[in-house]
């Protein structure tokens, strides 16, 4: 019996015990195969009322300047919580930003949010798109507060979830409700999970098993897209320069970095600047930390449901999983790119020397990471 199975059966036994307290804490779900417990912040415990409220807020397009954009516009339930196949997201009046919408599925496990990690939590993250000029476009959060304080359904919802009404309802409650909802959007139980953690030998194909060997071996994927003994988040929650986007603007980095830091010191919003300026966007994590080590670096995303969320990378520049594998295989640049790899490239990225068959095998493995709930996502 694998350790994961032992752990599972112990937990099942615990849940079966008539311990009311435990059941309350665990009300939301037993975590799916392959995933750990969802981390819940102490100051924002889950409750069914709060989750239902967050669900409603998440799907409400009134929180945008043109009344057409909600969180779910770019994080669409039917598209594995992305806006696939768009390359970068479309905000109000079809304005576009610079980045590909990351899925909300399993975002609860990240230790920071956004591609550059500029937000420390789901709570904090949820407020920014509403007031970003190219996303939901509100001048400030007042229009949101007006709606949630006056709409009868919201008045009822906030009362139930927080025991608050009127001016006591603030963005703090709005953010907490949205985050609580997002913490329910977790998904494991993929064919890979059934094979690797569940012991079902036939859950994935022989080709995918060969691909797994490449994933943990010659492909070096697992070093950042982490698989552990009892769970697989497929992320190290770190930031790496893998030669996407930054290669193209590498000669401009000295000017861009200096200008950006000057603007930032003068009070410019990182959130607004990186989504407005395609070149500054490519500075990646550097825009948040000012650290040379993170020039052009972006967050390691989960690979769960990756087959359903094309196109790929922070800028949506790679169309297929095969394109992604080829990019890594060349050591941080795509075949045919006119520019060399940038000098700030992560030390983990190097040519892999994978043959065509190995690339196909690796893609077959990545296709086993789709959870049952998203097999029919309408992203093609």
């Amino acid at each position, binding site marked *: 019996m694998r350790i994961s199975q032992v752990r599972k059966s112990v937990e099942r036994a615990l849940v079966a015990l008539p311990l009311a307290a435990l059941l309350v804490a665990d009300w939301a779900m037993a975590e799916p195969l392959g995933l750990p417990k969802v981390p819940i912040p102490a100051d924002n415990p889950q409750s069914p009322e709060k989750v239902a409220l967050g669900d409603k807020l998440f799907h409400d397009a009134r929180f945008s300047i043109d009344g057409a954009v909600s969180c779910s516009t770019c994080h669409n339930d039917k598209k594995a919580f992305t806006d696939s196949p768009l390359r970068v997201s479309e905000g109000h009046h079809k304005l576009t930003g610079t980045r590909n919408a990351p899925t909300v599925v399993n975002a609860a496990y990240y230790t920071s949010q956004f591609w550059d990690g500029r937000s420390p939590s789901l709570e904090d993250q949820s407020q920014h798109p509403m007031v970003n000029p190219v996303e939901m476009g509100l001048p400030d959060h007042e229009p949101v507060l007006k709606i949630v304080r006056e709409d009868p359904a919201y008045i009822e919802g906030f009362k139930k979830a927080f025991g608050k009404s009127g001016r006591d309802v603030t963005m703090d409650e709005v953010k907490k409700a949205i985050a609580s909802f997002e913490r329910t959007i977790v998904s494991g139980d993929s064919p890979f999970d059934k094979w690797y953690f569940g012991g079902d030998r036939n859950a994935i194909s022989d080709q995918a098993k060969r691909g797994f060997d490449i994933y943990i071996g010659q492909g*070096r994927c697992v*070093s950042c897209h982490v698989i552990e003994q009892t769970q697989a988040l497929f992320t190290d929650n770190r930031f790496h320069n893998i030669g996407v986007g930054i290669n193209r603007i590498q000669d401009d*980095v*000295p000017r861009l*970095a*200096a200008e950006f*830091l*000057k603007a930032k*010191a003068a009070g410019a919003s990182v959130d607004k600047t990186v989504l407005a300026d395609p070149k500054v966007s490519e500075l990646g994590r550097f825009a948040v*930390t*000012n*650290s*040379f*080590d*993170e020039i052009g670096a972006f967050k390691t995303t989960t690979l769960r449901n990756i087959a359903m969320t094309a196109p790929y990378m922070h800028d949506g520049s790679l169309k297929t999983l095969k394109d992604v594998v080829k990019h890594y295989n060349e*050591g941080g640049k795509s075949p045919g790119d006119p520019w060399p790899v*940038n*000098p*700030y*490239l*992560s*030390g*983990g990225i*190097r*040519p892999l020397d994978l043959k065509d068959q190995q690339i196909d095998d690796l893609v077959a493995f990545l296709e086993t990471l789709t959870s049952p709930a998203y097999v029919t996502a309408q992203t093609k």
Partner: protein
Amino acid sequence: MTKLITRRSVIAAGAAAGTLTTLPISMVRLAFGGTREDFSFTYISDSHIQQIKGASFVRNWDMGLKRAVAEANLIIPEADFVMFGGDLAQLGKKEELDHGGEMLSHLKGKLHVVMGEHDYYLDLGEYWTKLYGPHWYSFDHKGVHFVVLNSIITTDEWTFHRWPTAEQRMLEMAGLDNPNGSPFMVGEKQRAWLKDDLDKVSKDTPLIVFSHSPLQKIYKGWNFWTDDAEQVQALLQPFKTVNVIYGHVHQIQYNQIGNISFNAVMATAWPWPYPDTYAQAGAHVPVLTVPMNRADPFFERDATGWQMIDVSSGRVTARYQLWDNQERVVAYDPKLGKPVDKRYQEAIVRKAPQLHY
């Protein structure tokens, strides 16, 4: 991790100065007045550019030097000059020196280069000289007297009479724990030049001496060693403030001998481990004769990096820019009279290690 420091952020940091990467000159209190002022230079070392064949070079070493050059060019305000600490090439080949030299050519600012044994023992520095000039010389900058030495020469017998080919001589000197190797030295001729050079300098003038090998004796088997170190030190000791900065060891080292502070710099290519002689107790590991590739084997840049050197009142603060790792700072502590690592302090101020499990 290196942070780009702007004048504005220095002002914002206020009294916290000293933890910053670079200090704009205007913000620095001039501790010794007169014509001297505080300044910074960048220090890149030990890139070991290695030709595989033709236009093919070892990618890992290329990427290290490229990254150091790109990052050094981002420093605001610009450093006064750049030092390269030796071992630009791996086997002294023209192709390697040219390939590495092309990368160094992208550096902003004046470049000074130190001779390393990997640059030298193929043609005894002939091609290197065409690129970078004399092997030893001195210059003055903002009240500090700088000396560049070639500390990696050895006996005439070993150099001229022992090896059938130049290639074999190069390979023998490149080996570690090699009984056919020979200890480095500055040599009589260069020491005589140094004495003459220093005779013209006031004993109050701060000295900064650049060498490739340590001008102190650490571990002979890997030539972490200069055979006539004591004689060179004796020429430096009469000066009140002396700093020796060396490469070769691919790791952070610091030491004080009399008036001389020693700082080692990191390589951009690969890290070396601590040599055996420094082990506090028997390690019972196999004798290491291959490079310790890196601390984290996934990130090939880990445990390599480059340095910002701040010079304040003639004393050196070495700021190690360590890739995929934490920045470290080794600075002269006037109270203790020696360099200390800002993070790894004296035993009494350290957190006690866990002794039970």
